[in-house]
């Protein structure tokens, strides 16, 4: 072919038109809002020089009538393609806010659906970088149908390949449903927001004044609604966070998670600092993350939903390079009780790990469920049941270590032996009982306490006795509900060998279309 001939010339001209969509003017527009362009985001997300764009030149739909004027473009406002993240195949789409406000038209949607089909075919994770004005009004029902098609594929892929949504701009109306179906939602503080109905409509219908950020900003979703699991201060850190998350996940539900080099330092297997963390006084708080960080490989703990339902800590960690999912009660928030938010947070995390064959470690220190009218009326019963169901339904290896309190229903829920826990360990500070010592003796010795001259003193003495005789891990140990009471210092060593033994675990639940998890 003659590089100066008509054929190649036409090829180059077309390329130029295409590149002009991504000129410095459009870059400035995004930067002026504190946002990066779609191309810049892709460059940060993927390993250098590995991204290959697909369907770059697909054209927008044609304008139709007065209400359907569309500014034609190549690509229709979304970049789709594949590349490598840490050397592994990953598919991604990035909406381009500069082109028709990143709005979803029929072609835009078709591209995303094509990408979803590809990801599912190849069994590789798919990441959506969302920055869109929403459905394209000009294309009417075709836009909505586009969304529906995307949602359908999100659901088909759910539990088959990891799906991550990164909200880097607006996501409003129907657009929020795709992210909420995906496994993880990342948001960037102050420049991204998600809501079903925007402030304008809220003002019109309810006459309430609210800003974009207050209604559905990143902080709202990270702290209050729990819709966003990860929040970062700027886009670069957000995308680096996505890269980090991917390094823990398998590419599909048939593979195991990628491994890193085992921690060379074997002296960490015996860690005396673990003995010092949990106080003997059952009412003193501590930070369970200190325990987690001493058990997992150094700096390998990646917390999910850090700001939401802080009374339960969930996240990924590594033991000798192998990924595990960690669920731990946090005694320094709400005394570690379980409530609605923490139950749903834990349940979703367990379901994800179960879908992708990630073994689970549960660190337990829970005095029970949070009491109160608010919790009861809001349905703590069915939300708590979600956590229970998720545990019981999980067929991945499940290990529990009871650090301190484990009372009543919460004992059952937190992966107890009869709920299917594979290995259940306890520390010497563990207290396993139907209820706490004070509560128990108040009931069992009601008559004696009423008749005593110093009921407070008697109650204290009885509580101490109860703690010694009943609320300790040895009773459970002797009945076989605890496999072993261990020295906290050797927890890491114990867990490493336990997970190793469970590597090949395979069990199935009865065949059915799917269970009926309380929702």
């Amino acid at each position: 072919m003659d590089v100066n001939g008509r054929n190649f010339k036409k090829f180059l001209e077309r390329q130029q038109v295409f590149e002009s969509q991504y000129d410095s003017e459009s870059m400035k527009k995004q930067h002026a809002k504190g946002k990066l362009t779609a191309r810049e985001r892709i460059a940060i997300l993927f390993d250098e020089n590995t991204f290959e764009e697909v369907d770059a030149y697909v054209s927008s739909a044609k304008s139709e009538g007065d209400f359907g004027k569309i500014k034609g473009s190549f690509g229709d406002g979304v970049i789709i393609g594949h590349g490598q993240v840490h050397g592994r195949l990953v598919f991604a789409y990035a909406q381009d806010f500069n082109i028709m406000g990143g709005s979803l038209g029929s072609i835009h949607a078709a591209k995303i659906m094509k990408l979803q089909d590809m990801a599912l075919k190849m069994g590789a994770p798919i990441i959506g970088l969302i920055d869109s004005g929403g459905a394209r009004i000009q294309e009417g029902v075709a836009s909505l149908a586009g969304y529906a098609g995307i949602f359908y594929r999100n659901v088909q892929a759910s539990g088959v390949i990891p799906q991550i949504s990164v909200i880097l701009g607006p996501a409003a109306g129907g657009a929020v449903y795709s992210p909420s179906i995906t496994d993880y939602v990342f948001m960037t503080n102050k420049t991204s927001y998600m809501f079903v109905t925007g402030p304008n409509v809220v003002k019109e219908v309810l006459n309430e004044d609210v800003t974009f950020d207050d209604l559905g900003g990143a902080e709202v979703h990270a702290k209050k609604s729990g819709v966003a699991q990860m929040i970062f201060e700027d886009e670069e850190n957000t995308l680096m966070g996505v890269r980090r998350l991917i390094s823990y996940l398998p590419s599909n539900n048939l593979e195991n998670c990628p491994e890193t080099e085992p921690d060379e330092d074997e002296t960490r297997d015996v860690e005396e600092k673990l003995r010092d963390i949990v106080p003997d006084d059952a009412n003193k708080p501590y930070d369970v993350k200190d325990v987690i960080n001493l058990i997992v490989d150094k700096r390998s703990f990646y917390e999910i939903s850090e700001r939401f339902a802080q009374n339960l800590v969930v996240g990924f960690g590594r033991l000798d390079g192998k990924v595990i999912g960690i669920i731990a009660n946090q005694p320094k928030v709400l005394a570690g009780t379980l409530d609605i938010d923490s139950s749903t947070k834990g349940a979703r995390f367990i379901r994800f790990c179960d879908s992708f064959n990630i073994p689970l470690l549960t660190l337990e220190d829970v005095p029970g469920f949070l009491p109160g009218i608010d919790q009861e009326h809001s349905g703590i019963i069915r939300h708590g049941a979600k956590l229970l169901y998720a545990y019981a339904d999980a067929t991945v290896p499940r290990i529990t270590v009871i650090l301190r309190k484990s009372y009543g229903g919460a004992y059952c829920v937190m992966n107890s032996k009869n709920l299917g826990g594979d290995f259940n360990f306890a520390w010497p500070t563990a207290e396993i009982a139907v209820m706490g010592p004070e509560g128990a003796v108040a009931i069992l010795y009601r008559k004696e306490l009423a008749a005593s001259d110093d009921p407070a003193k008697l109650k204290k003495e009885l509580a101490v006795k109860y703690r010694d005789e009943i609320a300790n891990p040895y009773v459970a140990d002797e009945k076989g509900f605890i496999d072993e009471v261990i020295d906290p210092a050797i927890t890491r060593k114990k867990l490493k060998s336990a997970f190793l033994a469970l590597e090949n675990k395979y069990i199935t639940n009865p065949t059915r279309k799917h269970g009926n998890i309380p929702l």
Partner: protein
Amino acid sequence: MKIKSILIANRGEIAIRIMRTARRMGIRTYAIKTAKEPNAWYLDEADDIIDFSECLSDTPEFLDIERIIHAVRENNIDAVHPGYGFLAENPIFARRCEEENINFIGPSSEVIYNMGNKTVAKDIARKNKVPLLRGSKGTLLNADYARRFANAIGYPVILKAAAGGGGRGMRVAENEEEVERMYNLASNESAKAFNDPAMFIEKYVAQPRHIEFQILADKHGNIVHLGERECSIQRKHQKLIEESPSPALDPELRETMGNAAVDIAKGVGYFSAGTVEFLLDADRKFYFMEMNTRIQVEHPVTEMVTGIDLIEQMIKVAQGEKLPFAQKDIRLKGHAIEFRINAEDVQSGFSPSLGTIEKISWPESKNVRVDTGVRDGSVITPYFDSMIAKLIVYGEDREKALQESSNAIRKFWIKGTKTTLSFCRAVLQNRNFRKGNFNTSFLSSELKIHYHSEPEEEMLAAFFAVFDFARDLEEAEGKKLNVEKGKNITPWLLNKRLR
């Protein structure tokens, strides 16, 4: 009357300090163990431990008079040293000791009771012709009384708790509008801290210097003073830095004030160690404030410049011995400065910084003395005070002491909590402090920024933050992911998953 065993009803640095002297004197020491700090250092320094870990009542361990008395009797211990704080100035405790024939190392319960009441103490001063500030003779009936009195004395006035101390239960009212609110605040605080809401009122001297004299007396009527301590570097009436001698006193003023202090002690029939506190105004007029009938936190500076072990003297006095020296034998030599290092965040308004002291280290030198109850791994709890250590530095003169202090503080390293070391540094950098030119308003008016940092330090901290971030990034990015292992699933599993 020889004391062969002492129970130290205290903890932390003062417990260790008392035990060291007792051990030197061949006396057996007992310490009290609490559930709040079962691994505290002071427990290791005692010969025997009495375990108060069982939580029998709501009374805090070191305030539980009967339990302590019982422990002393049960173990046949000769004497009790209360240290400072806790029961040190509790007349009931002293009385119970007297009743049970336990040697209370301190003054008599009657003296403690009298001097413990600020209005009674002032009466005694008045009787002994010691200068006093205008104020209420007794306690005030209510806020209204306070207001009327204040109007009579003239503003500003200070409302003080009669049973108070350590800076608590006091508020200044600048004008009539403030009196009622300040009265209530101070009275409530006093009721909570000292179980006594009674208040008295005094003319408030703006920007005085706080000068106190160390008194030592035996049971035979011999009383001496061991010079003064300058304690004007205070924050909200809590002393932070003390020194002896005071740069504000000349030998003449020292003699006058010292004699006044001795007069008060004599007037009340004092024996053991005690401290008479004065205010010195800008005109070098002094006024009696109160007498503390206990050993004080800052006693080491007096020990450094007089060469006298105050705890040893207290024990000897308790044994009935006569003081081995007279006033003419007391000479102040050199200069000593004490820096209290607390677990507080200076940059956040001295808010408490609780936690574990992971590591602590200071320079050992003949001019440096460190009194501390904290070692590597000690926990600063919310149950007790936030003191980490007392750094006491000696020099042949004030200038040398200041230099030595800068050095010692630079080499004092603490890891695990925020501390007031940066505050000490800021004070040492201050020109007026170095000149000896300061009073109790130093922190609020003279020291603009309460912590000191060299210009390159923020840059170095910034560098380290960036370095650590870059290093983490490099590690995360550089981590090799072994995907192959993830694909090597045993046939057993793969078979099942495929189904």
